[in-house]
């Protein structure tokens, strides 16, 4: 043991800072959160040093999970919120991917001002998200927003975009699409440029039309990049809090799992840390299941590049 340490102390010393930081910022809160899910901790039962009140929360077993998973209204209607979260996640990622790929294909051609277009299209990504979200809130404003003014001028109905209806979910998805497309575009453009030009030439010689070249060369060539960015996109969007919170706040029509967890933790009559933590653990479990299935599917297809 001493010989081992004498030989490898340097390597351990190098990884120690990372271990400490990850432990303090990730593992410890995770373990604490997991523990909270088995208790009835909330604002009234947590230790409060200001009021000189000791902790009074108790171990309640799986009560929190039972309450949440039975889908009661008072516990955030878990199943319908999950459904909304899935619509939000896959709708956004699909739009990101489709629009990002379209723009990447356009930008991959040789044309004038290509560099300028690239910069302009990456711009939404460079702007701080809260600025973009507030700009969109102005655009969507039902009375003064440019969208409704334009619709009104054309004699079309002028809905309340960010109000108490499912239209709000659509609107926040539009906002998030605007924010997420540049990342997809940049990564897919990189993927497109890594496909050798000879493959297109060979396909052209083999008599492939433009659509057949896209289907048989471009899409397979992008597969490894696509699978990575779609996976990342799903995880990010599933957990994306700020866009929804900044555009509609605590609107139940745009509520997804993370925003509900936040609501439960920071607002309400009693800040219910236990239920908020339960939501956190459930989100983590869902994403783990998703990643496992996804990776297995990818492995079965076989990474080609």
């Amino acid at each position, binding site marked *: 043991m001493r010989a081992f340490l004498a030989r490898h102390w340097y390597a351990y010393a190098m990884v120690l800072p990372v271990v400490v930081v990850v432990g303090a910022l990730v593992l410890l809160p995770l373990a604490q959160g997991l523990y909270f899910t088995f208790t009835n901790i909330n604002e009234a039962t947590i230790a409060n040093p200001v009021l000189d009140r000791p902790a009074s929360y108790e171990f309640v077993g799986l009560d929190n999970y039972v309450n949440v998973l039975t889908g009661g209204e008072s516990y955030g209607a878990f199943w319908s919120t999950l459904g909304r979260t899935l619509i939000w996640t896959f709708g956004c990622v699909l739009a990101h991917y489709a629009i990002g790929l379209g723009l990447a294909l356009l930008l991959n051609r040789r044309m004038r001002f290509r560099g300028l277009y690239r910069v302009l299209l990456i711009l939404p990504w460079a702007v701080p998200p809260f600025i973009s979200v507030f700009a969109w809130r102005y655009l969507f404003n039902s009375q003064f927003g440019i969208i409704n003014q334009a619709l009104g001028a054309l004699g079309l109905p002028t809905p309340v975009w960010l109000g108490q209806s499912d239209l709000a979910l659509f609107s926040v998805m539009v906002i998030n699409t605007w924010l997420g497309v540049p990342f997809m575009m940049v990564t897919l453009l990189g993927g497109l440029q890594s496909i*050798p030009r*000879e*493959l297109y*030439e*060979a*396909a*052209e*010689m*083999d*008599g*492939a*039309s433009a659509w*057949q070249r896209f289907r*048989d*060369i471009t899409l*397979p*060539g992008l*597969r490894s990049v696509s699978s990575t960015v779609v996976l990342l996109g799903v995880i990010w969007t599933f957990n994306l809090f700020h866009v929804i919170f900044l555009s509609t706040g605590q609107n139940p029509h745009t509520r997804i799992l993370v925003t509900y967890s936040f609501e439960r933790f920071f607002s309400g009559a009693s800040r219910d840390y236990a239920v908020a933590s339960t939501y956190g653990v459930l989100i983590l479990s869902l994403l783990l299941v998703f990643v496992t299935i996804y990776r297995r599917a990818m492995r079965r297809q076989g990474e*080609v*590049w």
Partner: protein
Amino acid sequence: MAEVAYVNASRVFPGTPPVRAVDNLELSVADGEFLVLVGPSGSGKSTALRMLAGLEDVDEGAITIGGKDVTNTPPKGRDIAMVFQSYALYPHMTVAENMGFALKLRGVPKAQIREKVAEAARMLDLTKYLDRKPKALSGGQRQRVAMGRAIVREPSVFLMDEPLSNLDAKLRVETRANIAALQQRLGTTTIYVTHDQVEAMTMGHRVAVLKDGVLQQCASPRELYDRPANAFVASFIGSPAMNLKTVPLTAEGARLDGLVVPLSRAALDGAAAEGLSEVTFGVRPESLRLASADEDGMEMTVELVEELGADAYVYGSVRIGEHPERFIVRVDGRTPPAFGQQVKVTLRDADEVHLFHPETGLRLSA
């Protein structure tokens, strides 16, 4: 099966000044012929091939395949198959799918595709590998798949763009012979691009030498070797390269150090008509030999001896006028001279010399 013709075809890349990558190429290839385009890098040989493939525009002139003008026809409509230097195999398809891709796009029934692919695979010894992806194949196997992809199509013209340059030396020699034999058997018109003059000489029925986008000479390998049309072709074809030196002319012939090479009347008259006092004199290493002490010859100091087994190449310097000039002589491999030795060198046969105009480089001797 088709004949191919370039009719004053040019490709001009925009720029300042514009680059004429292929300049007024006039070349016709007979049905079933194996034509090799050869030249140093940047000579326009690949561009010429890509123009025929339809991957590069034809800015001036025209290209015909089988008598049909295809100048503005997209690659799809030209009925040609191409083997790329990088092979350009589709990485996500198996060998069989790669080879059958063109047929699949054409809507050929599956059973028929399978049959044709199997046949080509037999021909190329690929049967065992039909279910593999390209990345699981060796370089030589990938090369054969690329060939197979072209063969399965049964096109009227094969185009090959340096298909052997990614193989190791031994495999290259082997594959060279296989491609030539395959072409013979299929009888398909083939245009083959290479920068390797040995490939050009061994494979082609005819060889077209290009330099700076301009066709220098197109002839059979024998003709190219024996009667190069200009000094560039003379120096490019043959390994090691021909000794080419500018030497003064006298009434009897060309004067080298200690040796006057008698020239034919016709050649001397030709030079006189041009008013030349000097000519570019070319002699191949194998046309020179070591002279015995009592013969006339050039005094040469041996600087390097390359022993190849049967032969040895002796590199040495000879004074011509004021300057030392390097000459290469082929000698018997068993008794080569030593480094630093002084030897006398003479011609094997006074007929085996080539004379070129010292400025234009054009051939003078008949």
